[in-house]
């Protein structure tokens, strides 16, 4: 327990003190890693806990991004735009999730992918609201939106970095707390044996539905935080290649520990940053990495490290 608190505090300190030493490039990269880590954690709330593989997290990511972008462009202050954006994504997840959670594993994966691409198609075609394939541009950063002296401007990149980083860290703490809560334990019981969980009084479908909507909320928050960072949003946020990123990050880091998706997001974006300097076919490289991961070490980097430590202790 104490190790976890120290690890959490260390991560928070590194993230928050980073602007003191890092330039714009590193700051941008780290914020992207944080956003992907949050998206991957939301994905893993379903996958790691219940074994349900969602290929449609991009839908809620885009939902949050577009909702926040529209609110910011309408002049709503930052904090409220971001939170309402995340809520809009949760509402979207509440509607689509009602269809998805009626189904067991394979149907679930197909449905999340199909609904993800439905959202993509809607974003692409609904030009009046979403700007079609151009997306939305000129998203302002504006003021925070709290009363009195707290209503400062977030226009500077460093301030925006800190704002977004704090929100991501708070979300991570909530998600971590959630994994040890009754909901988290119920989800694990469902993963191990859904039938037995049902008999012991867990309402399986409702529990999964709550997890699905929660995952949509945090995926939406990640997307909502992207909009002011890039100051544009495009339909690619809803595309299945975006939904694939949290899947790959989680698999690389390891789906069976809380830290896995976070480590995976850092490694994934770090690797991508290096690979794109050599080739534009980085998806090919990640396809091969994914193939190797599935065939050889399914518990990911964190799982492999934990095995190594356990073996050393025994020796």
């Amino acid at each position: 327990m104490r190790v976890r608190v120290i690890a959490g505090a260390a991560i928070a300190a590194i993230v928050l003190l980073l602007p003191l030493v890092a330039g714009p490039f590193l700051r941008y990269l780290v914020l992207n890693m944080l956003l992907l880590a949050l998206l991957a954690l939301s994905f893993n709330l379903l996958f790691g806990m219940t074994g349900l593989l969602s290929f449609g997290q991009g839908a809620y990511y885009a939902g949050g991004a577009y909702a926040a972008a529209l609110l910011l462009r309408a002049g709503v202050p930052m904090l409220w735009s971001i939170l309402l954006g995340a809520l809009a994504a949760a509402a979207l997840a509440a509607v689509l999730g009602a269809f998805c959670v009626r189904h067991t594993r394979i149907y679930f994966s197909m449905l999340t992918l199909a609904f993800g691409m439905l959202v993509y198609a809607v974003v692409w075609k609904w030009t009046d609201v979403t700007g079609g394939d151009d997306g939305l541009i000129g998203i302002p950063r504006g003021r925070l939106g709290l009363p009195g002296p707290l209503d400062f401007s977030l226009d500077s990149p460093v301030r925006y970095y800190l704002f977004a980083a704090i929100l991501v860290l708070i979300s991570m703490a909530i998600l971590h707390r959630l994994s040890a809560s009754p909901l988290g334990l119920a989800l694990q019981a469902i993963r191990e044996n859904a039938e037995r969980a049902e008999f012991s009084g867990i309402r399986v479908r409702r529990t999964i539905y709550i997890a699905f909507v929660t995952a949509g909320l945090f995926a939406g928050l990640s997307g909502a935080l992207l909009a002011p960072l890039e100051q544009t949003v495009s339909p690619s946020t809803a595309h299945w290649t975006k939904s694939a990123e949290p899947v790959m990050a989680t698999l690389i880091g390891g789906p069976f520990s809380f830290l896995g998706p976070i480590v995976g997001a850092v490694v994934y974006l770090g690797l991508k940053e290096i690979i794109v300097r050599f080739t534009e076919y980085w998806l090919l490289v990640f396809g091969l990495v994914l193939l190797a991961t599935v065939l050889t070490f399914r518990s990911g980097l964190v799982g492999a490290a934990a095995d190594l430590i356990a073996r050393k202790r025994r020796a």
Partner: protein
Amino acid sequence: MLFQGLVGLSEAMYLWLVAAGLSLIFGVMRVLNFAHGSLYMLGAYFAWVAFRISGSFWVALLAGPLLVGAAGWAMEFGFLRRVYSAPEAFQLLLTFAFVLILDDAVKLVFGPVYQSPPTPAALSGAVLIGRSILPTYHLFILGVGALVGLGLWLFLEKTSFGLVIRATAADREMARALGVRSSRLFTWVFVLGAILAGLGGALSMPVRAISPGMGEFIIIEAFVVVVLGGLGSLRGAFLGSVLIGLLHAYGLLFMPVFELALGYMAMALVLIVRPWGLFGVREG
């Protein structure tokens, strides 16, 4: 109107070939092949290469699917069978890795440009039916689709190999206990599914632009089809494809803005009324 219907039906036939393979593989092996759209794409590219070398459409139509069959063999024999004992999510992830690899590999080898070879001379004309002019090639595709459907039905219902496939789909353990060598059977079923997808791709070559993204589009459509029809049911895959094809064709005519969403709306409706699909078996 008739023209639009024919276009819809011929579009449905590509979808049917992909969905049939997807459904067949799932029915027997309980593996959902995300890369099935990529195999369709490979079919188009292989057929295109065969056409460039031989100059004959018919050679291309034969070579494309067979080469995809070989690729399917490599995929099942080399990789997929190593994860049959893993949770099904990892089987899905493995086929998903192939989507990433094949899509980018095709881009790497052939470039991202849209390739469009010509329609063969014998099939490039049009036929006058009533007051509508119908392109011969579309009628040809309809014929092939119907023929494949009939062939599959005869194969599964009337041959001993088909009987073994049906037995394994119905009860894998029992079939194995009765002496079915399921690992060999799995390989052949996967190859057959791959050939069907490859045939769809090869057939699409003269009329649809060939591009690295063509697989991802059709796999999602195929998912909608198998959810509509019931995963594992070939009858469902056929009727689902026809339904989606017609919905798209007439949707484009009457409400172009909603055209893309129509298939999903049909899927959502079926999920509410019959969650296991029109011809599927109730889960659990």
